[in-house]
């Protein structure tokens, strides 16, 4: 179980295991820097030419008590020779800063049966007998598995450089990984310099020393290395997380103002913009609350600026009234909702796709809006550009549904070739056309030309009351009907410009899996595995959720069963009191059933982490076996 280190000169050359992909985790108590270690390793691997997808492991609280199995904080990095589209299934190698966080990951089923564990061993000799007992118990439980456990004297080693035992283990761990996976030290040091760019040179040097210490320890004590071949990229790549991509997308689309109020997991978009937005003439406004933030964005948009607001579920709930104002006043607005677990404060740091129905319908009165969902980190960048364009073309609200998986995950993608056409057109302050009214709806399309304050002849009183074409309050009969029709018509018109969704796999078959948002990579990988087993499964991933892309009913008709896969809640058939009539289904499933009148089933989970392709694969297999009568 425990590796006994031989003197280097007596040791054989390490065994090199060659793998097409590997999944690793670095876990610690919150505040020990495991996330930083994982982020740097992920970025360096991507830059060296591995496909990468990272998933943050975050406790539900910002600072849970130390040494709690449920309090693991860190990063999971799945990297491979080819592209990686999701966080994968089980971890092949884990570095744990204490045995309790390791136990937490083990009990969650996160580790592969043959996982290699590098475990800080200072706890075994801790002066606190309770800790020593907990160590023994944990090791007993873990040793019953077929893991390979390697004890590492991290603290003892790090104390030779940094007197604070809580500091430095992360860089030491990075050194271990650099040795095991043969990562470029030069690139790691560049990445450390970037990560600690706001710290002193001394901090940088200490971190580099710890990195090298870890690498030297690994070289002297480990008998294996793992090779995940890299393919140096042929084109320029960028490596970032989804929130940075959203922020960059805002810059690329010519956004001029972001009004927000801090909320996990959306806040880091504003952290990014705070550093760069003003260099591009943008304004980042942190309002006094969520309601004020959306109000400022609407006001800015009304006055001709290109504005957006960003939030997460609870903040979105607060913004609904103002979003209604933007809809009825037809003021273009982009709202980004980085979803987390809910309701209420819920799971602030964990992923869920539970805001779909809120994004679609959370509004008194009829308030049609566009809802789109990027599926990858690259799409987070590009979605903002399209959203702004639609919002301004149709004078409407566009909601982008991202989530905590995308927001913190890191993935490399080709560096976008920026285009000036992505920017908002210059403000047109020319006099408005003679006789043109502020809501001169084209009766066919519902669209109208927007007037900006200051345009000669374009002055009008903007009102949240129902109004006619002249923005006059709707006292007369029929005005509200006409105005509501016109606002709704825009969605129908937009839907007519949308293309049918592409089918991943055969065009017909036994099972069609339908997903949306960040689950795309996991679903497609699961379908691929199922197809390799001869299962006739395909998938469709929806990007437009309001309006829905055309042709869904016809596509559904080609499959014996249609099933959504989502990270939101649904009752399980067979649960107590749950019947076909009262069963609560996944949110996309509810929408698709209503829109297509097809019997759309669902497989949904709310585990607080991204759905693993292995679980989806199993759900696909079970669904098809049930169809064919061979119930598993």
């Amino acid at each position, binding site marked *: 179980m425990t590796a006994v280190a031989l003197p280097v000169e007596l040791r054989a050359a390490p065994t090199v295991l060659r793998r097409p992909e590997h999944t690793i985790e670095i876990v610690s108590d919150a505040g020990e820097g495991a996330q930083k270690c994982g982020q740097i390793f992920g970025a360096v691997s991507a830059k060296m030419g591995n496909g990468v997808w990272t998933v943050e492991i975050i406790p539900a609280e910002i600072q849970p008590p130390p040494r709690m199995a449920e309090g693991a904080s860190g990063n999971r990095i799945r990297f491979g020779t080819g592209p990686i589209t999701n966080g994968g299934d089980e971890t092949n190698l884990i570095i744990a800063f204490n045995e309790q966080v390791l136990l937490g990951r083990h009990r969650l089923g996160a580790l592969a049966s043959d996982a290699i564990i590098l475990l800080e061993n200072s706890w075994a000799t801790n002066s606190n007998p309770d800790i020593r007992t907990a160590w023994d118990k944990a090791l007993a439980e873990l040793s019953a598995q077929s893991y390979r456990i390697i004890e590492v004297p991290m603290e003892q080693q790090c104390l030779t450089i940094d007197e604070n035992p809580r500091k430095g283990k992360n860089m030491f761990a990075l050194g271990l990984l650099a040795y095991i996976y043969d990562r470029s030290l030069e690139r790691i040091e560049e990445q450390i310099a970037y990560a600690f760019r706001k710290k002193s040179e001394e901090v940088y040097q200490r971190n580099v020393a710890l990195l090298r210490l870890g690498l030297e320890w690994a070289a002297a004590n480990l008998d294996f290395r793992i090779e995940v071949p890299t393919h140096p990229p042929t084109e320029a790549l960028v490596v970032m997380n989804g929130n940075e991509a959203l922020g960059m997308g805002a810059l690329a689309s010519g956004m001029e103002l972001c009004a927000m109020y801090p909320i996990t997991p959306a806040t880091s978009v504003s952290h990014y913009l705070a550093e760069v937005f003003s260099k591009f003439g943008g304004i980042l406004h942190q309002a006094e609350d969520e309601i004020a933030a959306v109000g400022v964005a609407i006001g800015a948009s009304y006055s001709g600026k290109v504005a957006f607001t960003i939030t997460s579920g609870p903040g979105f709930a607060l913004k609904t009234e103002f979003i209604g104002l933007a809809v009825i006043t037809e003021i273009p607005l982009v709202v980004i909702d980085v979803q987390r677990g809910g309701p209420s404060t819920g799971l602030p740091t964990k992923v869920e796709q539970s805001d779909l129905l809120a994004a679609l319908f959370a509004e008194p009165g009829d308030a049609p809006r566009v809802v789109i969902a*990027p599926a990858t980190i690259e799409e987070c960048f*590009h979605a903002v550009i*399209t959203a702004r364009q639609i919002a301004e073309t149709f004078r409407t609200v566009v909601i982008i549904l991202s989530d905590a998986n995308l927001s913190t995950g890191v993935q490399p993608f080709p560096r976008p070739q920026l285009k000036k*056409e*992505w920017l908002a057109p210059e403000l*047109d302050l020319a006099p408005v056309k*003679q006789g043109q009214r502020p809501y001169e709806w084209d009766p066919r399309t519902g669209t109208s030309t927007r007037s900006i304050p200051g345009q000669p002849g374009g002055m009008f009183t903007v009102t949240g009351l129902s109004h006619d074409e002249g923005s006059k309050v709707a006292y007369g009969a029929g005005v509200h009907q006409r105005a509501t029709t016109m606002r709704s018509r825009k969605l129908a018109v937009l839907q007519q410009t949308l293309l049918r969704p592409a089918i991943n796999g055969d065009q017909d078959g036994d099972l069609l899996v339908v997903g949306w948002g960040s689950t795309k990579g996991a679903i497609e990988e699961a379908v691929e595995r199922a197809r390799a087993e001869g299962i006739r499964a395909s998938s469709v991933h929806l*990007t437009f959720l309001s309006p829905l892309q055309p042709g869904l009913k016809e596509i559904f008709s080609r499959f014996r069963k249609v099933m959504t896969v989502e990270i939101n809640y649904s009752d399980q058939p067979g649960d107590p009191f749950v019947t076909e009539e009262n069963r609560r289904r996944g949110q996309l499933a509810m929408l698709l059933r209503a829109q297509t009148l097809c019997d759309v089933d669902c497989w949904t989970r709310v585990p607080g982490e991204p759905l693993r392709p292995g679980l989806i694969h199993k759900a696909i297999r079970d669904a098809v076996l049930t169809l064919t009568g061979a119930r598993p």
Partner: protein
Amino acid sequence: MQSDERVVAALSALGPRIALFRFAVSGTLERARNTLASESGPSQTRIALGDFAAGLIDPDRFAMISSGSGPLDAVGRAVVECAAEALEALLHAGDEDFVVDVHAGASPAAAIRARMTTLGAAFGAATLVELVRRRTYDPVQHDLPLEGYPFEKWTAAERKLAPPLVIRLDGRDLDAFELAPLIDGCVRLILLVEEPSPPAPLARLVSPGVFVAQSGDMKVLERVTDFDGPAVIAVMNGAEARFVHDPRVGSAMWQRIEVTHMPDAQPRKSLGVRSAWQQRDDLSHLKALIEEPVLPANPAEARLAAVGGNGSDPTDRLTAWLLDQSTPAGVP
């Protein structure tokens, strides 16, 4: 007429403003070409919608529906083509096109207006391109001549981009009143004045926010390079007054104006459009501008002192002030 060296020096000093004007022309020309190209080349809508929309949105259908983005009609296309032609010609305008020679006896203001109208065609063309691009062009309402677009129609933004001009003229024809309406935005008028000239022809143009100078050398031009406002500078070679009014220097007139030379002799004869009396009055005006005002004693202060309100105690001062304010009008 003045020597060419002065014209070259003036044009050199105005180089950044000329470049700015050309940049605006080239930007508008590009926009006009893009407008035409979008009708036949790769769809602008496809690009504008971004990569996210690829495979999701039909750009042609989107373009048809999106407000004002349908195909150009024949009239619109013809208008943009004409505008592009006019802009192309203006883009190739040489430095000599920013120099105006005013024949003796002619009106400098009329000559300047004529050149501004010619160069201002760029602004007219830009307006037309935008109207067509936004599908709001109305042949009746927007019948803008492309051969010229008069200064009076320029918007505030266009006046900020006004093409600078070097004007060679006879001093006898210089009439500041005629120039006044042209001073706006970032207009730059460099007058290369040949003597004889009235002693202070530009004194009447001195006003807050306007850089005005009469100078004997070209160095003064350097001072307006980074000035964000209108400027009129006369470069003279006789015994006329020499002064610089720089709005950035102070808050009061006498702080902003610096006179380095004042003619000894008072004008006795009329010169061109200016009578002797007008010339003397111009000089008097200039003298008045540089005088630091001596404010008369404030009656209120005197009264404060009378009631003991000029002490250091704030309460006393406030009480005194209130008493002063409550004194009925006309009551001593």
